[in-house]
């Protein structure tokens, strides 16, 4: 039972983290109609920056804040130099162009930080276990992740739904020319939105860093999940991203934890241990396939897409 609660919380935490990543991706697609494969690279850069700055300053939090700022900056620079030229083009052009950026980023990271990868150790005050229910303890860091991501989700909601900028974002998503004609600086808006997406990716990367390693290629691995989530939730829908991120987080975590046992009840132990790892990783793809059969545009598709 304890294990189950712990895995549920892990699923929640993983799902929320994926949400951060997917939200950035779907935001950029929904508003600028841009498919950004290099989104995973920004996730990676956030983690690398955090590890480096934390080591320099000696403080985890300070390192994280600096890393966030740095990733935001990188995002905006990339937008101004490269992304801008891709707006309005065929999606294939986006895919190819941003794929080129992945190569560039991966190799640049390898050049600057070497091929080995880094680690980001937790400060002692975060590395504790907190009692959440009588007799049940959970990592305070993972709880912190849950709290932070929920706060960010709330912030996004307020930003997009309640502020002027959010209104421009939503308006820009449905009618670019109009918003431009209204005298709004579309270029600046897009740069900021892309920067926001980058910051979300970077935040996800740096928060995940102490739990998994910081290494080249981590972006590509997680990007797939972000894609699956976006497909399931519907492109352009942040609400869809949240729901499907949580779904994917739970299914993947609980699946990996309990599916092998389930298999053992049905199959022989030998067959179960052969099939388990392969089948567990398949679960979210099966989910995606099922959603596709019934709703090809995703669960919460944003209307006109």
């Amino acid at each position, binding site marked *: 039972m304890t294990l189950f609660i712990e895995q549920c919380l892990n699923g929640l935490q993983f799902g929320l983290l994926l949400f951060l990543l997917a939200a950035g991706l779907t935001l950029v697609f929904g508003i600028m109609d841009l498919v950004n494969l290099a989104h995973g690279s920004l996730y990676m850069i956030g983690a690398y920056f955090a590890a480096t700055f934390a080591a320099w300053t000696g403080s985890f939090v300070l390192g994280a804040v600096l890393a966030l700022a740095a990733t935001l900056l990188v995002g905006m620079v990339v937008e101004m130099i490269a992304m801008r030229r891709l707006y309005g083009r065929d999606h294939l052009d986006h895919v*190819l162009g941003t794929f080129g950026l992945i190569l560039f980023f991966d190799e640049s990271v390898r050049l600057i930080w070497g091929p080995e990868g880094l680690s980001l150790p937790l400060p002692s005050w975060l590395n504790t276990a907190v009692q959440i229910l009588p007799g049940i303890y959970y990592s305070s860091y993972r709880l912190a992740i849950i709290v932070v991501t929920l706060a960010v989700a709330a912030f996004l909601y307020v930003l997009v739904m309640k502020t002027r900028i959010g209104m421009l974002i939503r308006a820009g998503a449905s009618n670019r020319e109009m918003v431009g004609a209204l005298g709004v600086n579309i270029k600046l808006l897009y740069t900021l939105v892309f920067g926001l997406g980058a910051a979300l990716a970077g935040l996800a990367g740096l928060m995940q860093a102490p739990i998994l390693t910081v290494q080249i290629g981590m972006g590509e691995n997680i990007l*797939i999940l972000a894609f699956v989530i976006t497909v399931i939730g519907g492109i352009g829908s942040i609400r869809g991203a949240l729901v499907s991120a949580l779904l994917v987080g739970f299914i993947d975590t609980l699946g990996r934890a309990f599916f092998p046992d389930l298999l053992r009840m049905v199959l022989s132990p030998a067959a179960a241990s052969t099939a388990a*790892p392969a089948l567990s*990783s398949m679960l979210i793809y099966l989910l995606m396939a099922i959603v596709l059969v019934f709703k090809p545009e995703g669960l919460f598709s944003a209307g006109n897409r």
Partner: protein
Amino acid sequence: MTRASAVRIAITVALFAALALLPLYAHLTGDRFMLTLFTRIVILAIAAVSLNLILGYGGMMSFGHAAYLGIGGYAVGMLAHEGVYSGFVQWPVALAASALFALIIGALSLRTRGVYFIMITLAFAQMAYYIVAGIARYGGDDGLTIYKRSEFVAPLDLSNKVQFYYLCLLLLYGATYLVWRLVNSRFGMVVRGARSNDMRMRAIGFPTYRYRLVCFVIAGTLCGLAGALLANHNDFISPATMYWTRSGDLIIMVVLGGMASPFGPVFGAVALLVLEEFLSGITEYWQIILGPLLLLVVLFARGGIDGLLQAIGKERSA
């Protein structure tokens, strides 16, 4: 025949002739590495040609095409591991498995369009990657060594590098010819029309989904053949062959070479892999150059090499 197309045809023929003469060159200069490199280039060119069928002509942006390289390769590898070395068994299995996978993935993915399609094909290919990486019996993550190449009838011996090269080259010629006939046939016109204006195709009476699906299966099967060849070439197969970034490499070859003709991807494969060799001789961080180069090609030379040849031809005749 216009002057423009004459230039293009001449260069294409020259390339195909050069490829045919390569083993002679390698023999005369004693450069064994060239033969190995170009065998790999020819095999990946087959994969690129198959991708162009759905990408260039069909407008289906599949980001999971490398999966078929893996499926074809693992069919050969798994059977070899179980002691079945006959190419007459291995290769049909490779083709059948690729066709089946393409059928299932295509049936599901082709219900979507545009960005969704890209993401879905990518995700399904990754699924294949994870499945294969999870099967410990066939090497899992580490991959599977293949101790004996596919056996056919004497005198054909795949472990003879020159023979193997010519086999691959013949298959490349065949694949390119097949795609050429396909895209000009009635079936091909439907697929091209569907790429150009799917709504209109349906309005005039074509149920475009099934044509796309058949096209998708053909492309996947052809790529599965390339996979079987690749496994033989490397004497090894691993999940890394199917990792989604490898699908990206194939797309690069197609776009770089030019999507408007069946031969474009051959240019692309040659260009990309030769460029890789060249750049990695200069610096081990060659992808830092390749990445932005790709972006530049996308922005300024979208028609790829084939497009450039057309442009050159036009200028000279003007």
